[in-house]
Every structure is written in C-alpha cells, then in structure tokens.
C-alpha cells in the first residue's frame, strides 16, 4: 500500500538522529515487546508489517519503533481472537492504577530451549520452483506502476522506472498480500540496478546507483 511507511525519496524528515553508544533497547519494555512480537506463536492476520503499514499515518509517524511493533502484535492477537480489546483495556487500566504491579512470572525452560532453536533457525530460502525465470542478467526491465492496497515490497520511488537485471536469486515466496483465498505465490527474485538519474532526475547525486530486489511479478519489459 502507498502508505506513509513508503518514504524513500521523501523530503522533510530532517537530519539523521545519531546516538553514540546506543543501547540495543532504550527501555526494558522495548526488549519485552520485541520478544513478544517475535516469540508469541501466533501469526498476525494479514502479516506483521502490513498491520503496521495500516496504522493511520499521523499515528505511524508519532509512534516509536517498538510502539509500532506492539501495535502489530496486539492488534494481530485481537483480530485472531486470542485476546479481546476488553480484557486488554482492563489490564491497561490495572497497570495504570498500580504503577508498582508487574506481570505474573511463569517460567518454562523447555520453551526457552525451543525459542533459542527458532532464533538460530534459518528459514528455507529455496521453495519449490514452478517456472524458469523470465529474465536474465543484463535484461532491461521496467518496474511496474502498481498501486496495490495490500502489502507490497515495491516502493513508489522505483515504480515505472527502467532498470537492469543485475543478479537472479533463488525462488522466494512473494511477500505481497495474495488475492483473497490464495496462498503467497513463489517467484524468482531479481536484483535490479537503477541509475540514480533514472530515479531522481536532475537532482540526483553524481556517480550513484541503487540496487533493490524485485519479485518477477513486479517487472515488465
């Protein structure tokens, strides 16, 4: 979707906010949200990232990174029916009124072992290969001018622009929201090279190129 998250090329966000000796998490709750987001064994309906992208743009911009993660995890569990808004509101009210209260402690070393295994597990990168790739290295292609309402990995700043196939990766599941009732498709993934002038016109900086990966369905001749 063309939401605010698709911000490549935008002006107005100011200087890079660099922090020396930055901690991994800036507050304990951030780390706990990270862990809950990644290790609660429930999928987020429509996908974790799409849930974040659907946030109202003003809310998206005003929310910190882990606030967005918390939103996706929480809203996902509500939509999957694993928790209800009412019980969540009740808990929030409780912790608001009881500043010293802490969540209950339940430990299970077996689940820790399972989590650690998942942490180091590399997902299969090479799903079954349906059709041979349509394009080969050196082919001139154009990124489609598409504007799906669903999740997509094709940013606006590349759409409609001409590039060249730089590398052909393996096959991958396409991340885009599939049509209703369908599974994610499996497609070849290409590394595409764009000249900066193609993307930004006269305002481009000198001697710059951009590489970005594109599923086959993003491309046309």
């Amino acid at each position: 979707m063309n939401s605010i998250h698709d911000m490549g090329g935008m002006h107005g966000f100011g200087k890079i906010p660099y922090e020396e000796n930055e901690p991994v998490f800036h507050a304990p709750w951030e780390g706990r949200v990270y862990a809950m987001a990644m290790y609660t064994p429930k999928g987020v309906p429509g996908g974790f990232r799409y849930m974040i992208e659907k946030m109202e743009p003003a809310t998206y911009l005003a929310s910190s990174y882990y606030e967005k993660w918390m939103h996706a995890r929480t809203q996902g569990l509500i939509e999957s029916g694993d928790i209800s808004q009412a019980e969540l509101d009740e808990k929030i009210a409780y912790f608001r009124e009881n500043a010293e209260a802490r969540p209950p402690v339940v430990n299970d070393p077996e689940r820790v072992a399972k989590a650690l295994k998942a942490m180091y597990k590399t997902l299969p990168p090479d799903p079954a290969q349906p059709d041979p790739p349509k394009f080969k290295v050196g082919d001139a292609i154009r990124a489609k001018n598409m504007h799906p309402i669903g999740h997509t990995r094709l940013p606006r700043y590349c759409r409609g622009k001409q590039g060249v196939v730089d590398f052909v990766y393996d096959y991958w599941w396409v991340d885009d929201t599939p049509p209703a009732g369908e599974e994610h498709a499996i497609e070849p993934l290409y590394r595409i090279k764009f000249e900066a002038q193609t993307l930004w016109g006269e305002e481009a900086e000198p001697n710059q190129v951009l590489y970005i990966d594109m599923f086959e369905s993003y491309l046309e001749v």
Partner: protein
Amino acid sequence: MGHDHHHSHSSADAEIRAKALEALLVEKGLITTDVIDEVVRKYEEDIGPMNGARVVARAWTEPSYKKWLLEDGTAASADMGYTGKEGAKIVVLENTAEVHNVVVCTLCSCYPWPLLGLPPNWYKSYAYRSRVVREPRKVLSEFGLELGEDIEVRVWDSNSEIRYLVLPEQPAGTSDLSAGELTELVTRDSMIGVARL
C-alpha cells in the same frame, strides 16, 4: 525543530501497555516470562555487531574465506555459527577504493540480525529511510564520511528477503594484526556502510 524524537512523552504509556500485553500473554500461556527474558538477553549480549566483526576480520585474514563470503554469505556466516531469523539469505558487499556500498530499508527496518543484531534507531529513522536512497553522499557526510565523486556510491534498499552486510576495506597498516585484534577495529557503522575504517 526536533526530528525523530518519537514522542517520548508517550513512553510511560507504552510501558504500561507493554506490561498489560505481557500479563495477558503469560496468563493465557502464549508466552513465558523466561522466554522473554532470554530473548532480550540474547540480543543484548550475544547477537550483535561483534558477530559481523568476526566475519569481517576472518575475511581480511583468510583469502579463501573472503572469496566464499562474497560468493555465499549465508553459508560462510553459518560456518561461524551465525544463522537464524533475518538471515535466510545473506549477501556481502565489498567496499573498495572505487566503490562504496551503503544499506538501507526504506519500507521498514530489514537488517542482518545474525551478524549485526538489532538495528540502531538512526537506521530505522524516517530521516535515514527517506534520504539515503536520494542523497546518499549528503547523508554520509552527516556521518562524517565525505566521498569523492570518483567513488561510485551503491545504495542497497533491503526491501525483500535478502539481507546485506558491507565488507569494509581493511585499514592500512593492520596487516600484522591477528583476526582477534582486527575484530576490535570493525564497527557496526562500517558494516552498514555509513563509515569507512
């Protein structure tokens, strides 16, 4: 005007909401306290840029490893034990005197966790995400890195499932150092590509 301060005034409220979520998940048996504790500890202590630094130092000191790393970053990283989430396919990009690589995820925050851990805030900032694809030299100069126009700047938008690590150039005068000593020289920023060593 402040940028990317991300409304820190709401941080207290975020903490409350995080507690509420944790309480619900633990009560419902969806997660356990020690899983959360241990995941936090792992990313605070074990899974961070020191991993990528070891890979880089080994590549500097073992030509055959460097070759393998550039050909198959995933396998060469796995050889050091660096596998897992956000590392299904790792591609390593070599910086040279003529070419400078820099990595971003404009749509979100994609980052090679097994090698670099979780990304710093600036990498996730709206400023970095929006600007580095359009004006990388200007952005790099804010990091203190001024690149001549003779150096080609390659920006990598890590938008899908491939995760990129920059292999920085080995600093001059360090050829006598051991891999262990070299590891100390390799910074997180040099492996993202916003610094040279």
